[in-house]
C-alpha cells in the first residue's frame, strides 16, 4: 500500500482497503457470501448485514437506520479519497466533476433518507397523495382545457381545481429543491473554510472519521443558514400549504365517492367525534359538580397500569363500551333533565360501588 505524504490515495489503496474491510467483517459471519463481481466489498458487506436483521422488529429498524448512516459514511470516504487522487485532499476534491453525485444535493438526500418506520415527512405525504391522484389524471387531462358547462360542470371545475393545486405544489417543490441545493453549495464553502482552519501543525485531520465529522459540521451549518432564513419560511410554508390543498381536494373526491356508495364519510365521523368530545366535557363538569372528580373514573379504566400499555388499553376500553348494561328508566324530556338524570344514575352507581366495597371490607 502506497504511503503518500499528504494522504492521497491511489485506486490500489482503495482496493486494498475494501479487501481489508471484507476480511474483518466476514471473519465473524460464517454464512457471508463473497461479493458479486463488480460489487464493492464495502457495500456488499453492509447489504448482507442488512439482510441478516430484516424483519427483526425494533432492532431491525435501528439496524436499517445505522446502515443508512454507514452507507453514507462509506460513500463519503470513497468519494473523498478517490476525488483526491494523487493531489492533496480538499473540499473541492469531494465534489465529483460537474457536481453530479450522491453528494450533489446531500440536503435532499438526507431528508429522503430520514423517512422510514416512525418518521414520515411532507414529501412522503405528497407521494401518498400522488398515488391517489394517479387514477384521476386521465380524466383531468381531458377536462382541463375545456370550458366548464353542462351537467358535468361541477365535476369539471373540481378536476380543474385539483389539477391547478398539483401544479402549484410542483412549483413550490421546485423552489424548495433550489433552496436545498443552495444549502449543499454553502456546505462545501464552509467545508473549505473549516479545512483551512486546520491547515496548521497539530490540527490536521488524520482519520476518515475525523474528516467525516468535519463534513457533518459543515453540512449542518450550511443547512441551518438556509433553514433559518425568511425565504425558507416562505417556501416551506407554501410547500406545505400547496400539498394540503392537493390533499384536501383528494379528500373531497374520496368523500363524494364513499357517499355515493352509502359508506360513512369523514365529515360524518368528524361530527360524531365532535359530539363525543363535548359529551366528555359535560360528563367531566357533572362529575366535578357531584364531587366525584377526584375519583378514578371506572368506565375507561383499562389494563394499562404501565405507561407503555396505553395503546393496548384503547381496544380493551372499546370492548367494554361495546357491552353496556344501561339502567333504563323513563326518558327525560329536555337535555338538562337528561344530564341531571344521568348524573343521578352515575352518583347512585358510584354510591352502590362504595357501599359494596365497604361491606366487603367489613367482612
Amino acid at each position: 500500500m502506497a504511503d503518500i505524504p499528504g494522504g492521497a490515495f491511489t485506486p490500489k489503496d482503495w482496493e486494498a482497503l475494501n479487501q481489508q474491510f471484507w476480511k474483518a467483517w466476514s471473519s465473524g459471519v460464517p454464512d457471508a457470501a463473497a461479493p458479486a463481481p463488480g460489487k464493492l466489498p464495502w457495500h456488499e458487506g453492509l447489504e448482507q448485514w442488512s439482510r441478516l436483521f430484516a424483519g427483526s422488529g425494533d432492532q431491525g429498524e435501528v439496524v436499517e437506520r445505522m446502515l443508512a448512516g454507514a452507507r453514507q459514511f462509506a460513500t463519503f470516504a470513497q468519494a473523498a479519497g478517490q476525488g483526491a487522487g494523487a493531489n492533496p485532499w480538499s473540499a473541492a476534491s469531494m465534489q465529483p466533476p460537474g457536481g453530479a453525485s450522491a453528494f450533489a444535493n446531500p440536503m435532499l438526500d438526507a431528508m429522503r433518507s430520514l423517512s422510514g418506520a416512525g418518521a414520515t415527512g411532507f414529501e412522503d405525504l405528497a407521494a401518498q397523495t400522488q398515488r391517489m391522484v394517479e387514477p384521476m389524471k386521465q380524466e383531468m387531462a381531458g377536462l382541463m382545457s375545456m370550458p366548464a358547462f353542462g351537467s358535468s360542470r361541477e365535476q369539471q371545475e373540481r378536476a380543474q381545481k385539483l389539477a391547478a393545486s398539483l401544479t402549484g405544489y410542483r412549483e413550490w417543490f421546485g423552489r424548495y429543491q433550489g433552496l436545498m441545493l443552495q444549502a449543499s453549495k454553502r456546505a462545501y464553502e464552509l467545508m473549505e473554510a473549516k479545512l483551512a482552519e486546520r491547515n496548521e501543525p497539530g490540527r490536521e485531520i488524520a482519520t476518515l472519521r475525523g474528516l467525516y465529522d468535519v463534513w457533518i459540521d459543515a453540512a449542518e451549518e450550511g443547512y441551518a443558514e438556509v433553514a433559518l432564513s425568511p425565504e425558507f419560511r416562505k417556501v416551506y410554508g407554501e410547500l406545505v400549504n400547496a400539498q394540503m390543498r392537493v390533499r384536501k381536494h383528494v379528500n373531497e373526491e374520496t368523500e363524494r365517492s364513499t357517499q355515493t356508495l352509502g359508506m360513512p364519510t369523514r365529515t360524518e365521523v368528524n361530527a360524531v367525534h365532535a359530539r363525543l368530545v363535548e359529551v366528555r366535557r359535560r360528563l367531566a363538569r357533572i362529575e366535578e359538580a357531584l364531587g366525584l372528580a377526584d375519583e378514578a373514573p371506572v368506565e375507561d379504566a383499562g389494563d394499562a397500569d404501565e405507561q407503555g400499555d396505553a395503546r393496548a388499553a384503547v381496544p380493551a376500553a372499546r370492548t367494554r363500551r361495546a357491552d353496556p348494561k344501561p339502567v333504563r328508566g323513563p326518558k327525560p324530556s329536555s337535555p338538562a333533565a337528561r344530564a341531571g338524570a344521568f348524573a343521578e344514575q352515575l352518583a347512585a352507581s358510584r354510591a352502590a360501588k362504595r357501599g359494596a366495597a365497604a361491606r366487603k371490607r367489613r367482612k
Partner: protein
Amino acid sequence: MSMGPIRIRPDAAAAELTQLGQKLSAATRTLRSLDDVTYGCTAKEEVWRDGKIVLYRFRGERTPTAKVPLLIVYALVNRPYMVDLQEDRSIVKSLLAAGEDVYLIDWGYPDPSDRYVTLDDYVNGWIRRCVDVVAKRHGLEKINLLGICQGGAFSLCFAALYPEKVRNLVTMVTPVDFHTPDNMLSNWTRGMDVDLLVDTLGNIPGELMNHCYLMLKPFRLNHQKYVGMADILDNKGELENFLRMEKWIFDSPDQAGECFRQFIKDFHQGNKLVKGGLKIGGRSVDPRRITMPVLNIYAEQDHLVPPDSSKARRGIVGTKDYTEIAFKGGHIGIYVSGRSQREVPPAIHGWLAQRAQDSAPARRAPAQKSMK
C-alpha cells in the same frame, strides 16, 4: 506544494475500516442476544384517570420527606417515560431518593376521536383536575409543578390562570419566546396555514412530527449518530441504552388537531406568551400573575428550544423569586446524560427544599387526610 490539512495515511484508514468491519461482525452476535428493550424503572400507581389521561404517583424506596408533592407535566409530543427511562437514567428515581413525592400526567395516545380536544381541555381541564386531585390527596391548597418542554409552556399558562394552586413552578427546556432568530421549528411553522393543515389532516401524525424534529439536524440525527453507533456494536449494555433511546425518539403520539391548531397559532406564530393576548378557554393568560417562585432550567446546546427562547421567561413573569440554571448539554441530554443525573434532580430538590424552609405549606380548610 502545500500538504493540506488532511493527513489520512492509507494504513491508518485501513485500520479504521478494519475496526469497523470487526465491530459489524461482532454485532451480528450482540444484536441477536438482545431482548426487546424495556423502559420505566420506578414503581408507580394509577391514582386517577379520565379516558386516556392517567395520573400516576411514583413509589420510591423511601418515604417522601417533602411536605408538598411535585407534579410533572410532560409535553404532548413523545412519551413521558423519558423521565424514568432506566435505573441509571431516571430523573424521577433521583427526585424520589432526595425525598420528593412525585406525580406525573400521562397524556396517552390521542386517536381520531380526540381530534376536537382543545388546549382548553388540556390546561383548564386535565391539568387543573390532576392538580386538584393531588392537592386534595395531600390536604393542601397548592402543589409544586414541574413542566417539561411543551408541558412547561402548559404549566406556565396554568400557573398564570391558577396562581392559587401552584406553590412553586419549575420548568425545564421550556420555550417562551418563539420568535428568537435561532428557533428553526418556529421559522418553519410561521409560514404555514395551520387551519388548512388541521382541517385536512385532522390529528397531526406523530410520524410527521418526528420527521420535522429530525430535520432540525438532519445530518447529525440521521447519519452521524448511526455512524457513531458502530462504536458500541460489540457492547451489549451500551446497545440496549441506544435502542431504548431510539424507541423513545420514534414513539410519538399523534397530536389532537384542535389543540395543535391553537398551539401553533398562539405560541409559534403569535408568540403570545411574550406579546400578550393569549386566551385559553376564553380566559386571559397573563404571565404577570405568576408570582410564586420560579425555577427555569434550560439546556445550553438545545437545538429544539434555544436558550434565549427559554430565558425570556425572566422578563414576563411577575415573581420576585426567579432562578435560572443553565445545563451544559442538549434537549435530550438534560433527561438522560450522566451529568444530568448528577446535576438536575439535586438542583430541583435543593431549590424546592430551600423554599419549603422559608414558609410552611398552606393546608386546605377543612384539613383533609394526607396520603403520606
